[in-house]
């Protein structure tokens, strides 16, 4: 057995290292002013640095024991950072929930690794991946890895800890949502070469991702405080990342991981700005003519997306899925441009959405290209699951554009009211992490 080979720095490691360095640098720059008056600031910085090291080791490790160790350690340090003042019982409870989740996820990972190590008589990730073949043991190990990844990325039904984690200082939330929450995606992509062989498991990943994506999005739309809204949004974004994995598009998943990481950590850091930020009137529902023009723009947007992403425009594999997502994005963007004067703004809409589509594809391609040495993306055949998910996506998207107004009608059907309050209840943080008496809050 090879215990000595601790590290293997491949393209994936390099990208993750890059992300870690950038996000930690930004958040360090922020904390240096934001937290400098805290009495435990030094302690905080020490943990912050330790987390940085631990994560760097995680993404570079080849030895599974080291991998597991740094995985658990990183998460435990994160919990430490989350609980800024343990005298605030609700915050302490948030920490306990998160810790339980992470320990359980690590335990599953440990079993999975034990199975793999035992099967291949090696501690080396590289060796195991190269040697793996489809067997029951491998599949069990992979299934365990999926569950561990789901817990790490707060995929439904393991999302509760994430929605209850907002007792943390703002920059810690930024770090979590931009960094460690993505651990699930990283885990799956690390083992992507084995996953790629199992269509069944890919479908499982796709389905759990899809469910989380739907639920997270609906949760997000009914939230009335900024941080919980962002947390629900992360839940949906993680779901989307899983879907990309489930489509075999691991490169796209990593691109999503990276860009969403930057995006969400920015949103958390800037969350106090919402006070002055008013909602615009989006003029829903649009006129039919506007909508058809938007579809035209959407086709162009998705065409330029595939162009920049070096894909075929209408490929008959799972990459088509992303092309259609790009089209939806393009349609939505052009609706916003066309809403006031559809015909006068058409030229602008075409120009803007096409370049946005191109830009989108370019960004994704940037990461995918870098990873391609690992043969990390392998689009699979498109199947009914994918088509079903797309149909539901498009339906939900359209209904939000066209059917929002009934909610403001006088007689709302009981069913809608019931659905609404159930969604609200389901998306509440755990009771013990709330602070219903302000005197129980401790700064």
């Amino acid at each position, binding site marked *: 057995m090879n215990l000595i080979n601790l590290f293997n720095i491949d393209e994936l490691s390099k990208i993750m290292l890059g992300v870690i360095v950038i996000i930690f640098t930004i958040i360090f720059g922020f904390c240096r002013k934001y937290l400098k008056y805290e009495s435990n600031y030094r302690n905080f910085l020490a943990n912050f640095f330790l987390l940085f090291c631990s994560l760097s080791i995680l993404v570079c490790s080849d030895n599974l024991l080291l991998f597991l160790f740094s995985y658990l350690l990183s998460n435990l340090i994160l919990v430490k950072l989350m609980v800024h003042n343990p005298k605030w019982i609700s915050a302490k409870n948030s920490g306990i929930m998160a810790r339980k989740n992470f320990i359980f996820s690590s335990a599953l990972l440990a079993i999975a690794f034990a199975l793999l190590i035992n099967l291949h008589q090696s501690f080396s990730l590289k060796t195991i991946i190269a040697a793996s073949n489809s067997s029951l043991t491998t599949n069990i190990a992979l299934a365990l890895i999926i569950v561990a990844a789901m817990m790490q990325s707060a995929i439904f039904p393991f999302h509760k800890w994430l929605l209850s984690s907002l007792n*943390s200082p703002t920059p810690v939330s930024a770090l979590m949502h931009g960094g460690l929450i993505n651990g699930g995606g990283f885990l799956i992509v690390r083992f992507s070469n084995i996953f790629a062989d199992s269509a069944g498991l890919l479908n499982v990943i796709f389905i759990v991702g899809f469910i989380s994506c739907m639920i997270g999005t609906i949760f997000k739309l009914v939230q009335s405080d900024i941080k919980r809204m962002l947390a629900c949004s992360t839940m949906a974004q993680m779901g989307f990342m899983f879907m990309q994995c489930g489509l075999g598009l691991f490169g796209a998943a990593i691109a999503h991981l990276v860009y969403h990481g930057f995006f969400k950590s920015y949103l958390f850091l800037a969350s106090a700005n919402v006070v002055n930020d008013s909602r615009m009137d989006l003029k829903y529902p649009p006129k039919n003519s506007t909508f058809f023009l938007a579809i035209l723009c959407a086709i162009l947007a998705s065409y330029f997306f595939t162009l920049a992403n070096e894909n075929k425009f209408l490929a008959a594999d799972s990459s088509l899925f992303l092309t259609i997502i790009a089209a939806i994005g393009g349609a939505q963007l052009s609706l916003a441009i066309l809403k006031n004067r559809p015909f006068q703004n058409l030229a602008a809409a075409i120009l803007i959405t096409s370049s946005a589509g191109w830009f989108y594809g370019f960004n994704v391609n940037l990461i995918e290209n870098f990873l391609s040495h690992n043969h990390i993306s392998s689009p699979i055949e498109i199947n009914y699951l994918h088509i079903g998910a797309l149909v539901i996506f498009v339906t939900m998207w359209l209904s939000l554009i066209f059917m929002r107004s009934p909610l403001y009608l006088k007689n709302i059907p009981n069913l809608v009211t019931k659905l609404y309050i159930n969604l609200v209840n389901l998306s509440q943080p755990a009771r013990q992490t709330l602070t219903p008496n302000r005197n129980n809050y401790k700064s």
Partner: protein
Amino acid sequence: MLNFENILEKSWQNIAPFWPLQNLIATNPLLGMENIKFNEAVNLGSSYFEQDNLPQEILDANVENIKYLQLFFDDGQATINMPNRRDGFYNSWKNIALHDSKLHQNDQAKIKWLKSLPQSSEIAIKKSLAYLNVNKDQLEKFLTLSLITLPGWASYMQYLGSWKNDKNENLENVKDDFLAVRLSIFYLICSNPLQLINWHNINYHLMENRNKSLLKEIDKNEQKYHQNLITNLVKNTQQNIKKKRSDAQFVFCIDVRSEPFRKNIEMVGNYETFGFAGFFGIATSIEDNLSGKKYDSCPVLLKPNFKITRTKSCSHSEKKSDKRGFKKLNEIKGFYQSMKYNFVTPFPLAESIGLYTGAYSFSKVFLPKISHKIKKFLNRKIRPEFLNDYDLKNMSLEDKGQIALNFLKNINLTKNFADFVFLCGHGSHTENNAFASSLECGACGGRHGGDNSAIVAKILNEKAVRNFLEKQGIKIAQKVKFIGAMHNTTSDEVEIFSLSNDEKLNKIKADLKIAGFNNRKYRAEKLGISKAQKLQNYNNDWAQIRPEWGLAQNGSFIIGPRDLIKNIDLEGRSFLHSYQSDADKEGAILEGIMLAPMIVTKWINLQYLFSTINNSAYGAGSKITKNITGKIAPMQGNGSDLMTGLPLQSVNVNNEKNYHQKQRLLVVIYAPKEKIAKIINKHEMLQSIFKNGWMKLCALDEKNKEAHILNDNLKWQKFASNLLEE
């Protein structure tokens, strides 16, 4: 025997209003207890607001209550809103509650009870009270306790119900609605909410020991401060004789942050400064002609008398391009929102702009200045900047003349005008700061004071107004120009609303820069920063948790002539109002000052005091873990009651050490004590304030160099200095 409405009203009296984050107004959290002695109020307040051991089932009820309050009072956060909001809080709650198994636990009896609830919230309150078996003697106490156990949200209801101007129809009965929902939830969730009465009786004395030492501490702080200040003031009663006409005159807000800045201006040139409430005497609401956003720009104690539209000062074609630019900027914002709040579209959004947001965050953290410049440059490209102009067509000449006259008489600037008279409003410029409006001008209702200063300057420059003033005996030479300006309290820069390239004006601008530099140095020390230059970056620094100290450490309100206090180091702890007793024979001006600005300073002082005493109960807690609900109010973490009051970072050095000194405001008035007593005798409110010890008052007679302090029995006591004898 009190009827039901009176009892209801009485129980609400313990709740102070809470203004939303858009314009946080300083209030005394014990506002409703100002009719009893300060010491007693502190005790009663503790027994209500500082208890950390609420019964478990009341906490559970709070959780459900907060859930619905967050949903209903959301002002633009959620994409899908609570259904039927137009029916008001109670009715819209009633409709949903039927389907909420967390409330009725699928218990058929409870569902039936919910179905039987009446339309009117007032009847619902009575019904719930009957079901809870509250008897007549317990009624007031129980209602009070129901409110004070969810004090943050109750405060917001108090604001909506009793202080907000122009409210929507669905907020008509908001206070009743709140109670109706609260009591119904009690009925549904708690087995015995009446235990609150017992709970309060048991815990009533819990904080008395702490309060004893607290009151001692306050007394000690006050004594030390009073001795020092009054002794200094008495020593300096020699009025300087003015040698020559000043080059410019500046009128600042009474705000404590103006004091050191005024001193620094006076030091750099032949300048004279005045203090007046920062709304410059015009109670107006201001509407932006493009965004249509409207707000009241005057103290909340006043109702706006005028509606003024803000436009741009530029040519017709420029106005058109300004409008285009405004629309374009809005459209870009619309793109983003339209992508962010829908199905699927946030995913491509995140992947498309993720890289850019990363770079943006990086630049915001490490290169705030450059990143701000770039942003400003791009914004200007789309929408060039012009000075503001104001449409005063809603005001008659008489209105304008009166405002001008009152303003000048109040600060006793009726002759010897300098060529330039600056009306200097103030505001703070901070980014990513939910509590930004708590650093703004309180006299302008928690907004920037720039609009008011520009409006009053415009009025004073009007020829017709000058003629009006001349008839009243105030002659202002033609060359005298009134100019609006704005003091940025975060960076100590003064923006002057004039494009003129006059040489004298340029000299003044240069002097203001020097004064700003000196004031930054002074403030940097207080903030514990080595490089004063850094303060200029605080305007755009989104990570800066404490961009400025605001009004922390405020200790006194000095109403008197500037000359007499010019040479005293007031440490940036004093509100200053210009006043010349000789010019106010009847005392009408002083009466006005005591009834309005003085009350505002009291609110501010008591807000700082109580936020310091217990930041969880009376303050907002630390900014680092705050969350913002409905874009209107702060909570802590995952969810809590609303956190009213000032954040920890406004009153504390760190999470252990106070910065603000616990003391009540000392009002010093340069006027004969008989004159002051006459005014106090006229107003019960003033008597109550001083009798109950919510403020301290000192009369300073400059002629016979004597200071008198008003005691609790409203009797004057000669001030005896310990320091003078030493």
